[in-house]
């Protein structure tokens, strides 16, 4: 009989769960089922609450298990089905069909956040596609491999995949493939801080998209160019590209792309210190995002930007509220990587307030990186922010140690903007 017993804390519940791959979905169920105690919101520890301090009632977890097992079974069933389809295609010498089936399996893995298995499916697809006379399956496979590598922070791998995809697409007169590769290469260059390269790839992609009359791609590349201009601090150019992107998507009635553009518009307005316009853009972005099937990741991103805006305008109270909403959403939707970003931002906020106990957010973020997400780029970003937090509190030795850890992580990923940032911060605190 467990009625009336207090819930078990998530941090304790996770410690009871061995690090076994097959149990990963159970870990996710556990986190999603975690609840904050209503009365805990007024305790002095409330500002430091993280998912680890939430409670889980084993009895409430029990009914969730059959649902989780059913979802796993459905997932495996799709994967097995994709494999059999690939096999059938191979039997009737339909190589393109086999590649498509394998890519579908990888896509399903990627959709549930299983990036390493997704990569394994894509690599098999690549091997099959390389043996085909037809090049389009290989172009597509290289594109998804590039996208995945970019998501994982493996920039050099991503660049190689997109580059090959682009060359093949041009040779095959595959305009859609070439445009997608240009967009990918633009994104890789953006992530690495190679602004000229990013601009060149985006411009090329835009020319191709305009020639093909592909309105969605045009809008997306305009948006990409706006992001690039924003990173460079060229606000006038960013305004121009955002306007073009917005016009396209408004005509198309594409709610999610509109939300993305407006999210960037909010960032732009915030950089220009036009705070009420920035908050207006974010609210409109949320309105667009709610129009269709919501993309919870996008909503969390908008809310985090809104929180950053409040921080920027000296409204920590509202920033905290917005971050807590984002946290609630990220926990319910199992968006671990977003949760890690949220805790990193919460820690940053405490650092700005000179609150040493804020370290609990970074520790929670690192714990999540290790147990749930395993994305080195994200872990590197957390260590970087943790280092800044320690530095802000005057703890130089600890700051240096965390920044060194971040540097090692970014170096292992092949560099980029992040590595430059960490290195310059290390130089600054050593001076």
């Amino acid at each position, binding site marked *: 009989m467990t009625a009336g017993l207090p819930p078990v804390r998530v941090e304790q519940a996770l410690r009871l769960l061995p690090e076994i791959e097959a149990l990963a979905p159970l870990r996710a169920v556990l986190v999603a089922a975690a609840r904050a*105690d209503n009365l805990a919101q007024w305790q002095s520890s409330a500002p430091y609450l993280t998912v680890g301090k939430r409670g889980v009632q084993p009895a*409430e977890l029990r009914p969730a298990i059959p649902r989780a097992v059913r979802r796993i079974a459905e997932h495996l069933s799709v994967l097995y089905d994709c494999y059999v389809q690939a096999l059938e295609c191979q039997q009737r010498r339909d190589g393109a069909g086999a590649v498509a089936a394998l890519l579908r399996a990888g896509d399903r893995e990627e959709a549930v956040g299983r990036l390493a298995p997704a990569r394994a499916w894509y690599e098999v697809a690549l091997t099959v596609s390389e043996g085909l006379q037809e090049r389009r399956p290989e172009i597509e496979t290289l594109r998804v491999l590039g996208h995945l590598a970019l998501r994982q922070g493996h920039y050099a791998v991503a660049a190689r995949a997109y580059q090959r995809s682009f060359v093949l697409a041009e040779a095959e007169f595959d305009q859609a493939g070439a445009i997608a590769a240009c967009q990918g290469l633009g994104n890789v260059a953006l992530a690495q801080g190679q602004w000229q390269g990013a601009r060149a790839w985006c411009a090329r992609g835009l020319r191709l998209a305009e020639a093909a009359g592909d309105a969605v791609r045009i809008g997306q590349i305009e948006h990409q160019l706006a992001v690039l201009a924003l990173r460079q601090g060229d606000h006038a150019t960013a305004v121009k590209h955002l306007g073009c992107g917005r016009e396209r998507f408004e005509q198309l009635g594409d709610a999610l792309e509109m939300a993305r553009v407006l999210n960037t518009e909010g960032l732009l307005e915030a950089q220009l210190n036009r705070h009420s316009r920035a908050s207006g853009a974010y*609210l409109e972005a949320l*309105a*667009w995002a709610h129009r269709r099937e919501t993309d919870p990741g996008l909503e969390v991103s908008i809310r985090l930007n809104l929180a950053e805006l409040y921080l920027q305008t000296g409204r920590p109270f509202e920033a905290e509220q917005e971050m807590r909403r984002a946290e609630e959403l990220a926990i319910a939707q199992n968006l671990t990587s977003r949760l890690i970003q949220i805790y990193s931002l919460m820690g940053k906020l405490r650092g700005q307030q000179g609150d040493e106990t804020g370290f609990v957010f970074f520790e929670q973020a690192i714990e999540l990186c290790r147990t749930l997400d395993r994305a080195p780029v994200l872990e590197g970003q957390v260590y970087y922010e943790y280092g800044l937090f320690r530095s802000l509190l005057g703890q130089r030795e600890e700051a240096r140690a965390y920044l060194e850890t971040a540097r090692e992580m970014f170096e292992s990923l092949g560099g980029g903007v992040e590595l430059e940032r960490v290195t310059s911060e290390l130089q600054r605190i050593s001076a």
Partner: protein
Amino acid sequence: MARPQAAGLTRARSETPPASPVEIRILAVGAESAMTQSIRQWAEEAGAQLRHAPDLPHAARLLASERWDLVLAALGERPDEELTWWVDALRNAEGGPRLIGLAHQPSMGLVLRAERLGVLDLLCLPVRREQLLHALELVRSAATQVRIPLPPVESHPVGPYALVGQSPAMLEVYKLIARVASSTATVLIQGESGTGKEVVARAIHLHGPRASGPFVAVNCAAIPENLLESELFGHEKGAFTGAVTRKIGRLEQATGSTLFLDEVADMSLTLQSKILRAVQEREIERVGGNETIAVDIRLIAATNRDLREAITAGRFREDLYYRLAVVTITLPRLEQRGDDLVQLTSHFVREFSLRYGKTIGCISERALELLRNHPWVGNVRELRNAVERAVIVATDDTLRAEHLPDELRAEEAALPPRAGSGLATLVDAEARHLARVLAHAGGQIGAAAEILGIHRNTLARKIKEYGL
């Protein structure tokens, strides 16, 4: 029953009589229809100005660029989500416009949700003329609320906080602080969450012989269990994964001064025994270290739990309890402090007005009534929080009901008038009570069923039935 006159409150009220009927600006949101035409006509007849936005994105633009008093929002296929969006959007909008939701056959769940969110009203489509006029009247009356000047407050600064209040219950606390501060005796402060345990601990430190040293506070519930030991006792470099440098623990940092252990009941039994040893032997060892370090600290501990019950349940060491409870101070709940509520409200309004660059000197009678009627489970912390939110959204010199957080505003909102007497039906009353209990239980059906004394399956059926 009327409440007794609040101490320090000036009865001479200043009213703001409008020179002419207040012109209300209405933003109507939703697809253009014959209904919109009728609403526009009725609004204009009532002296209001109405503009129309076809959807949320357009409405967001209009909200960002103009000032509105009232938003009439037609709710679509996902009314719950839309309501939440609206409440977010209006919280940041200039002038703090009120919201009226319009829905076809709203479910009881939606009505209750609207009430919880502080929505002014939820009307069934098609809207009737008298319903709209009633809503406009509510908005107009809010604009002419009676204002009461906030009384001056005598506060005693305690670091970043202050001790405020002159209720008999607090006077007893002040006497105890004065008696215990001059010694170095260990003190245990008990009280519900938000009653000000840390403020009292700081006051004891600041009035004691070790006031020149730092006040080192550790929140035992905030720090993950596996890190709390190293936080308290420190660690040597490489003692465990993540021990990147040597760390001086909080006990060592507090040597010669005061260590405040907040939410002490949240400590594991193992750590409790380590703390007990440190207090008894006045020495510690860092995690992963061999060196014994002398510590001379004044210990103040606090908890919101019943430690005797925790001892009986085997969750707290009895010997540690007797070590901590040399002197015990129990803090009163906010509801036991009578008119301290007005004093505290006035203090917080001043504090946050200064912080956010506002000049608020008055509170509306309705806002004060709401504050007085709220149960304040989070005590002073909850009040502080509510006032901070209100100050942020306030636009002139008066803190009004509409500036208060949704939970408080929900207490003034009523369900849409029912046919006939306006009294709720038994079904309505049951649904509302179920919703309250569910909210109290954090949405946990098992816990809510236990409170209600019914089987969880019965509750689950009713939740479905009422659309909660």
